[in-house]
């Protein structure tokens, strides 16, 4: 037990304490944990999203399988297992069969760098952010593979759209992450978290005007990269049947959606780590947190909580905004997000000098931005309450219907 404790505290030296075989075992254990977590998350989110969508559309959503429908995702998954695994006759069999796996792997490999606590992380890569962008590009490969190998017009159109979209939005994602990397001075996610503080005004979002805007830029671009509505053009049902997965059925079809819903968590977790302070607890130093098992656990919980709040926001956005047109999508990227990203990087570099030269002013700006952020959140609640009141409705706070 004490060895495990030292391991979790990060003071453990694998070369000294244990034979070489234990380290691979731990790596496998973490892999199993990550995949299990991701799968469960993807499954449960598929149910949760439908419930939220139902409420936002004035209905209830699935509530029949199990209490409040919580087992709906199991039923759906079971159904998919029983489906025939169909490969179209004219499809490129091998490519068609392996296409879901790059998508799946591309999303799940990001768990390697997601930091839950000072010591709980798959691998604290010193090029963490670059790894994140590189491994996510696998998804594009998988989607194009699926679209091409299906030998179907709809699938091919979806795949090509997806390629164009993802390659375009890699650029604003890169710029936005760079804006956060410049003040932190490191590409490692643990390093970026360590550069922030536990209190909201010490978070990276409110660090400077550049990072404040970069937060929104990254969030938007990450949605587009993850094929989430309003940027789900590759799988636009109304125009492309189902896009790149038109020909897929059964479990292979489910893999794509597994990856999509797991990607929700990845977006939330990366934003939480890079912009919202990650596992940092307010008023607790890094050494103090690393020394205590319970503080590590609390930090991990806080990190997951932040990620889940962001997942909620993504779901909320999906059921609010209509899908963009292809031209609008490209205009949004190349005319708005990319120039904004360029300016943001320049401002971020400039702000390093401001921080050095006028630490008081920088701190004041951080407070102001923090206040703005909380004001926006409050404004949102007020607007929602206003809509209910003047829509002639009553507040109904029961979530389980």
């Amino acid at each position, binding site marked *: 037990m004490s060895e495990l404790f030292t391991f979790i505290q990060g003071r453990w030296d694998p070369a000294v304490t244990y034979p070489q075989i234990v380290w691979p075992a731990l790596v496998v254990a973490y892999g199993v944990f990550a995949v299990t977590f991701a799968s469960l998350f993807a499954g449960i989110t598929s149910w949760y999203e439908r419930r939220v969508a139902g*409420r936002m559309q004035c209905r209830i959503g699935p509530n029949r399988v199990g209490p409040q429908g919580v087992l709906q995702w199991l039923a759906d998954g079971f159904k998919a297992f029983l489906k025939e695994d169909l490969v179209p006759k004219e499809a490129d069999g091998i490519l068609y069969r392996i296409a879901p796996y790059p998508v799946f792997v591309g999303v799940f490999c990001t768990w390697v760098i997601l930091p839950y606590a000072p010591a709980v992380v798959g691998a604290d890569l010193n090029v963490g952010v670059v790894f994140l962008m590189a491994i996510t590009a696998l998804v594009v490969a998988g989607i194009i593979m699926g679209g091409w190998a299906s030998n179907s017009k709809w699938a091919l159109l979806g795949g090509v759209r997806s390629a164009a979209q993802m390659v375009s939005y890699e650029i604003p994602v890169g710029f936005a992450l760079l804006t956060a990397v410049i003040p932190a001075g490191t590409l490692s996610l643990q390093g970026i978290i360590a550069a922030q503080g536990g209190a909201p005004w010490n978070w990276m979002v409110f660090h400077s005007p550049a990072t404040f805007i970069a937060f929104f830029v990254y969030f938007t671009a990450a949605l587009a990269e993850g094929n989430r509505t309003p940027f789900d053009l590759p799988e636009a049902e109304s125009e492309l049947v189902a896009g790149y997965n038109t020909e897929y059925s059964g479990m292979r079809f489910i893999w794509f959606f597994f990856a999509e819903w797991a990607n929700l968590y990845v977006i939330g977790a990366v934003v939480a780590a890079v912009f919202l302070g990650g596992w940092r607890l307010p008023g607790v130093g890094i050494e103090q947190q690393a020394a205590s098992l319970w503080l590590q656990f609390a930090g991990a919980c806080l990190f997951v909580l932040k990620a889940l709040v962001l997942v909620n926001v993504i779901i909320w956005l999906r059921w609010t905004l209509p899908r963009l047109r292809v031209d609008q999508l490209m205009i949004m990227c190349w005319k708005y997000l990319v120039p904004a990203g360029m300016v943001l990087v320049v401002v971020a570099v400039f702000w390093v000098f401001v921080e050095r030269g006028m630490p008081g002013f920088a701190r004041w700006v951080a407070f102001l931005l923090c206040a703005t952020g909380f004001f926006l959140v409050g404004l*949102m609640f007020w*607007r*929602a309450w206003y809509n209910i009141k003047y829509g002639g409705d009553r507040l109904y706070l029961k979530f389980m219907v």
Partner: protein
Amino acid sequence: MADFGQYLANIKNSAVSIFEGMAVTFSWMFRRPTTIQYPDRSEKPVRDMIPERSRGVLEVDVKTCIGDLQCQRVCPIGVILIEMDKAPDGKGRVIKRFDIDVSKCMYCGFCTEVCPTNAMRHTHEFEGCSRDIRNLVLHFVDEPVPPYKLQKDVTPPTPPLGEILRTRVLRKWDASYRAWESKYVPPPPAPGGGSAEAQKGKEKKAEAQKAEEKKAEGTVEAAAEQPSRPAAPEPLPVPEGIRAGDILEAVEKAKSIPPAKAPESPAPVVAVPPPEEKAAAPAPPEPEVPPKDHVVEAIHEEQPWTKQLVKTPEPEVVHGNVDLTAEPLRVPETTDRSAAVDMEPKAEKPSRREVQEAVPEKPGFVPPPDEPDRPMLDRVLAAMPGVADCEGFCGYPSCRGYANALSSGGEFEHDLCDRGGKGSADRIALLLRKMKKKETVKTE
């Protein structure tokens, strides 16, 4: 610069509109969903939630029905079927039958408007789901009921809406037609009209006749009794796949065997013409047996494959629900009886087409007798052949079921009877047309 202003305005507009839009959707998270969780989680039964004057499935309270048949007359589709009868004590009439075919009703509400006592009403019931459309013919009369007498200053009592209907609708959507039939279709009536003694006499006659036939069977006279039969068996087709050698061998064998007996008469059909007709029929000459048939017979006896072709004739009792003693099958007397192929057992079942061709066309058609006292169901049934080896082309489990559906108006297609062919269909059509005219006029 103006362009740049527009550029910034675009950003601002999109940000504001997204923010407002999200506020709207967010607000719905704190409002009550309007979904009514039909059918099991609504606060009260849905029939109590739908508007008061909505038109659901029709129901009738036969206790307050005055039997004026106005609803039946006003119905544009013919959904309602009412049968009136004389009361058993001889005074007045009774309502013998009151059927509503919900599957055809279009909810126009005419019948409820003409009803003077409000016996006919639209309920709030709407769940009539059933796997068999015949389950949707609702029968509102179990025992004959005397019609309600309208009195001055007395408003007829009205039971709660839908109470009667709920006892009449089959709730199980996959309730089988047989269950429905056993509950609602009247059992086969006592044979024929007239007194019971006459009935018995008739039955005895029929029995005696049958016995006679049995006796006569096997003898040459039996063949003589059936003038319509082709005297000699038709030349048998040699089945394919049989080598000439086999036949030659058989012929060789046949030569050593004494000549076979005369070809047996095929099965007599029990649906015999009435005795008078029999007597009138002249006995045809004994069938000649061409000598070459011996060879064929010999082959039949020796070869196993011939068993398929020649069947030992047995008295084939025509069964089904035909009441033979009361009503002889309508076989056209004037034409050659060989035309009534559908009555006779065959080695292979004839196709529908064959049967239809075999049944004579109009010149030999005999219209069904005019028997106003006999229930329509029986009359329709008598117009069907009711043969044993029916393939069930009509889709009903029994001839009785099909006849019931036809006579109650639940079935429009009168030519579904495969074995009856065109003759049967024409007779049924005539009967049904008569029924329509009669029942509308019968109102006294």
